[in-house]
């Protein structure tokens, strides 16, 4: 290697910027059915190894697969949410390869007639000026298939150990078109898919446990060139951060190779999370030859219009629909709507809250401010948040009608209610003597006391140091023990000083 060669880490930006990155994903997502795709054994993560098994899962002779109706319904739900064409006639194919985690010697998948065709997901990223940019990433198709078992490589042993609990778990595989252009966009795409499958209640989307994982195809080409470059597939990614890191590294590796005049090979690479680099598999991979053919053990699935409509009618609202509704119906900013629809439970809580108060913006501020801080600090999900929407709505009414001040509400009432979630905010505020002092005479006295106690500051203010107003307000507030109405204090001070 000569000193003039570029490396992924030492690559001038102007060279990097000559190339466009092209990314396509295969996203595998485990479906939350009770039983497996073609057998009745339990579909659940964890559990003692080899306890969720059946003769079919172990490929014992004489067994026949029988399709799980729920898995079909879930795949249709996803397809409808992504605007796919739902295939009215779909079949299953055998994908043949030998690997011990697949006892049959083939995986039941879909090749020629996948259950959903086309469609896509819209992702939002930021441009250089921080403005939101929306792009729709198209799907080639979505198909159903079964997951494989797990190989456990125990370092000390000369054997590979096999756990078949996962074998046969229903998966949907979403195959995107090569529409993604950056690591950031890829991250946003996977995030949106995870949100979507959770909203649809078809998967827990848990990437650490492998419920959602991706194969990432990356290539680069000079801007303006129409043909795609040589692509590399990075297998089995199960964290959004690592997906983004792998895309960024791979893009730099490919550009530096091209700039060095080296050839790129179509290959499978792995990502090392420790080093942040991808590496080729040492073993030379013979081209896979899966020899797909229709599985004769499984008859076709015919979906009638009525069945598809029935599934459609039971679908929950999607994040995008809720975002639009929150902006148009409740008049909250798009940014707030984005955060409030991050999880379905949060969106549901906000909707309930908006049914109980008309101060939508205040409601949104409460959820994104104090409530979110509490959830983060205590590691709680909104579903387990102690205060009901009714209690929070009552607290919001107390603030909006100026019965208590905002600061008392956040600093005193909210923590106290978390201690005693059953208590009525109004009753608590009265019992704790937190009601806001809106008595003009009392406040006027306090204002005068404060101004008399700091004549120098008053002079300075009158000479133009208007920033001192905050100090005066703070002092009066202190004297009122935090109960003075800040608006009235401001007005009274302005009258006295001007």
């Amino acid at each position, binding site marked *: 290697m000569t000193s003039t060669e570029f490396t992924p880490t030492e690559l001038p930006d102007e060279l990097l910027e000559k190339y466009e990155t092209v990314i396509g994903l295969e996203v595998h997502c485990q479906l939350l059915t009770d039983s497996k795709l073609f*057998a009745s054994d339990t579909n659940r993560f964890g559990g003692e190894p080899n306890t969720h098994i*059946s003769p079919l899962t172990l490929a014992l002779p004489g067994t026949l697969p029988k*399709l*799980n*109706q729920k898995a079909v319904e879930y795949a249709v739900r996803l397809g409808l949410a992504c605007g796919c064409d739902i295939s009215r006639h779909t079949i299953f194919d055998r994908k043949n390869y030998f690997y011990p985690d697949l006892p049959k010697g083939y995986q039941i998948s879909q090749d020629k007639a996948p259950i959903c065709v086309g469609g896509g997901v819209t992702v939002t990223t930021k441009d250089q000026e921080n403005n939101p940019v929306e792009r729709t990433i198209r799907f080639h198709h979505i198909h159903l298939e079964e997951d494989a078992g797990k190989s456990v490589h125990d370092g000390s042993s000369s*054997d590979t150990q*096999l756990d078949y609990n996962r074998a046969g778990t229903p998966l949907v595989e979403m195959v995107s078109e090569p529409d993604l252009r950056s690591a950031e966009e890829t991250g946003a795409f996977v995030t949106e898919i995870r949100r979507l499958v959770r909203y649809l209640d078809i998967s827990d989307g848990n990437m650490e446990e492998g419920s959602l994982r991706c194969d990432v195809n990356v290539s680069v080409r000079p801007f303006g060139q129409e043909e795609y470059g040589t692509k590399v597939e990075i297998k089995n990614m199960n964290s959004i951060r690592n997906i983004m890191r792998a895309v960024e590294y791979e893009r730099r590796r490919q550009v530096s190779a091209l700039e060095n005049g080296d050839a790129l090979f179509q290959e499978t690479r792995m990502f090392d999370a420790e080093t942040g680099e991808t590496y080729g598999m040492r073993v030379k991979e013979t081209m896979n030859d899966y020899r797909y053919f229709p599985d004769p053990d499984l008859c076709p699935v015919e979906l009638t219009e009525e069945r598809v409509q029935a599934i459609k009618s039971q679908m929950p609202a999607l994040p995008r629909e809720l975002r639009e509704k929150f902006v148009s119906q409740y008049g909250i900013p798009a940014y707030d709507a984005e955060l409030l629809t991050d999880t379905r439970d949060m969106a549901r809580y906000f909707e309930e809250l908006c049914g109980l108060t008309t101060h939508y913006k205040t409601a949104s501020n409460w959820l994104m401010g104090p409530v979110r801080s509490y959830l983060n600090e205590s590691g709680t999900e909104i579903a387990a948040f102690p205060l009901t929407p009714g209690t929070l709505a009552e607290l919001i009414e107390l603030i909006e009608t100026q019965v208590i001040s905002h600061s008392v509400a956040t600093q005193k009432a909210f923590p106290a209610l978390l201690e005693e979630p059953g208590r009525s905010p109004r009753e608590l505020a009265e019992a704790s003597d937190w009601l806001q002092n809106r008595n003009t005479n009392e406040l006027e006295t306090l204002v005068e006391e404060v101004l008399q106690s700091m004549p120098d500051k008053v002079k300075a203010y009158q000479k133009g140091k208007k920033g001192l107003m905050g100090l005066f307000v703070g002092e009066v507030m202190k004297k009122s023990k935090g109960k003075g109405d800040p608006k009235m204090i401001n007005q009274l001070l302005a009258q006295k000083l001007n």
Partner: protein
Amino acid sequence: MKIDREALHKVAHLARLEVKPEEEAALLASMESVLTWMEQLDEVDTEGVEPLTHMTDEVNNWREDVAKNALSREDGLGNAPSHDETYIKVPKVIE
């Protein structure tokens, strides 16, 4: 249809079969005769005919999503050539 040695070994490898040199000639002849016979099917004009994927008209032979573990671990492992109390064991798979 002619089959060469390379094609024979490719098919054998995909099926994880070991072919001894003295078996090659017989296997080549056998595969060729099968494929020659299949070639006759190619003579039929299938323009505009949908592929026949299944032999009956049966559709939607599916089941309700009800979980039931049909096999105990002990019974499941018992059929494997090599196992311990928890896992089925196979010769080490190197990635």
